[in-house]
Structures are given as structure tokens and as C-alpha cells.
């Protein structure tokens, strides 16, 4: 459990990063290929929304694989949540999504990253743009915002392939219904249900000013998804007049948006 004291925390010295043991308490199925792992990490010191962890798996023959995953849970929660999408031919993601069970363990180190971080101490409207599993760190931000009952405006633009691929769908619906200051706009890029009221197709340069904050509102913008997604969206934002320094990006490996 962590208490966020000040906005300056992101620049504060970091405790030495060491590998710790993470034990799986519970596994939550988010979609047909995405699961959230709820972890008990022995000496967890807390984290800021947007940070990630490195995890390391060791096989019996000594083979090791290491990957990074964003923390999807807010600092207010006791268990650490990592949301993992099964990637085709992904040796780690396939293990985590298909084989891992409650009670299993692996090594973890973190929290890592101070650049791609947002807390309620940051002023200004919050604009989150997610591509596929890029929603994970942004969900930590939204969950933190909800726990803290922040009233400042927030918008999530979330691109997924189809409705079945939307991660945290019910939770996002509930959050938006319960909070007049939060808007959630879904873009479905490949398959849309009949009578789809959200955006059809990719998040494009037309949708951004239509749905988003104008540059004059100085929103803090966070974009997370695959490299092409992040590059396209951040380029559009800058072309639309948003201050490049107000746009923070994090690129994920292969993902489905």
C-alpha cells in the first residue's frame, strides 16, 4: 500500500532494483486471450500508475526468459496486477496465459519508469489513448483516479480489434457510468457489432479532435500500444497542435489493436 505524497515523486531517488519473488494469488480472465495475474510480491514498496515491472521465468533446465509488463493495478491495491495478452508464438505470454496457476511463482523487479507516470497530483485534464494491450498502464491511472475520486475531466480513447478484444470492458463501462467527468470512447478496428455506436476503424486524425480535448486545454496525454500505433497517434496529436511535451508515449511489443 502506498500513499502518494507529492508530484515530485517521479523524480525522487529509486530504491535499488532487486529481483523479488512474486506469487500468483489469483488469475482473472479478461478476454479469450488476455488474463490478469494478481500477484503477491513479498517486499513490494509501492508504485506509481504507469510504471512497469520486469519478470523472469526460469525453467528446470536453467533456461531463462525475461519480459516487461505494465502494472495495471493502482498503488492503492494490495495485490499487483499484470495484464498479459497471449501473443502468437510468444513463449512467455503463452505460459502466463495458458499454463500459469494460482500458487505458482516467478521473479519480478520493479517498479520501473518515472517518465510514463501520472498521479492525481498532476494538474489538468487527463487524456489516455490505448491500442490493444496498451490499455494496461492507462488502466492503473484510471483506477488510481477512481480510488482518489478525482473530479477533473478524463478521456480514454481505446482501440481494439473487436468487442471481444476489449479488455476491462465491464469495469470501464461502470467507471464511465459512475463518473460524469470520465468519457470512454471505443474504436473497433476489424469487427463491429450491428448498431455499433462507437468509432469504426482505427483511431485516426479525424477522431482525435472530434472526441478529444483541444490543445488549449493543455491535457496531459498518454499514448500506449504497439510502435506503429504510438507513432501514428503521437504524430497526429502534434500535427493537431498539441504540445509535444504534453504527449507521453510508451511502446509495447506486438499487441492487438
Amino acid at each position: 500500500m502506498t500513499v502518494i505524497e507529492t508530484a515530485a515523486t517521479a523524480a525522487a531517488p529509486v530504491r535499488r532494483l532487486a529481483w523479488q519473488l512474486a506469487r500468483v494469488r489469483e488469475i482473472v480472465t479478461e478476454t479469450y486471450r488476455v488474463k490478469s495475474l494478481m500477484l503477491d510480491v513479498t517486499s513490494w514498496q509501492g508504485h506509481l500508475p504507469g510504471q512497469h515491472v520486469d519478470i523472469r521465468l526460469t525453467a528446470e533446465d536453467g533456461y531463462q526468459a525475461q519480459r516487461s509488463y505494465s502494472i495495471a493495478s493502482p498503488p492503492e491495491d494490495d495485490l499487483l496486477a499484470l495484464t498479459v495478452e497471449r501473443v502468437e508464438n510468444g513463449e512467455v505470454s503463452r505460459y502466463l496465459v495458458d499454463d500459469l496457476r494460482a500458487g505458482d511463482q516467478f521473479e519480478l523487479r520493479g517498479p520501473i519508469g518515472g517518465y510514463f507516470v501520472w498521479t492525481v497530483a498532476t494538474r489538468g485534464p487527463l487524456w489516455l489513448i490505448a491500442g490493444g494491450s496498451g490499455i494496461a498502464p492507462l488502466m492503473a491511472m484510471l483506477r488510481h483516479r477512481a480510488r482518489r475520486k478525482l473530479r477533473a475531466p478524463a478521456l480514454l480513447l481505446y482501440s481494439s480489434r473487436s468487442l471481444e478484444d476489449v479488455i476491462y470492458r465491464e469495469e470501464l463501462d461502470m467507471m464511465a457510468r459512475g463518473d460524469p467527468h470520465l468519457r470512454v470512447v471505443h474504436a473497433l478496428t476489424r469487427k463491429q457489432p450491428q448498431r455499433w455506436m462507437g468509432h469504426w476503424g482505427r483511431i485516426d486524425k479525424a477522431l482525435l479532435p472530434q472526441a478529444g480535448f483541444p490543445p488549449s486545454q493543455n491535457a496531459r496525454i498518454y499514448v500506449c500500444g504497439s510502435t506503429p500505433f504510438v507513432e501514428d497517434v503521437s504524430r497526429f496529436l502534434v500535427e493537431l497542435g498539441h504540445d509535444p511535451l504534453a504527449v507521453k508515449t510508451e511502446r509495447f511489443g506486438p499487441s492487438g489493436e
Partner: protein
Amino acid sequence: MTENVSDLVLDGNAAGGLLQEIFVPEITSAQIECEACGSTAAVGTLHLYAAAMGAVLRCSHCDGILMRAVHTAHGRWLEMKGARYLRF
């Protein structure tokens, strides 16, 4: 076989774990100035290559190498001759 390497290009955020073994203050939010083109950016926004061998961090404007880091069994290496400064 993966043909398109650019999809796999991550950013300095992904090198956070490796770099944080070396730096005391938080590194991904530090500002770094490129010796080659003079642009300044947060380390977390640099283009990360060769992550499996260490980290090669390149300027997002000119692709010049700003930082290289390797963690070996015998110690950690850091080279930053492509950067004018780091500001925390």
C-alpha cells in the same frame, strides 16, 4: 520469421530495468541532449535497440547513439559519448 524490425523497436522505458541498475535517480524521466543533432528528450522516449544484448538507445530525431549499456556476468558497462549531458 520476423521481417519488420521497426515494429519491435521499443523505447527507453523498456530499458528502465537495465538502466536503473546503474543510475541512482530515476533515469527514464531524465533529459538527455544529443551530441550529433542537439535535440533534447526524456530517456524514456529514446528508441531502444538490441535489448536482448543490453541497450542501444538512439536519438528519436537523428538516430545517433546516445547511450549504450550492457549487464554482464562480470560487471555493468555504460557508454554515453553520444550525449552531451543527462539532466535529472
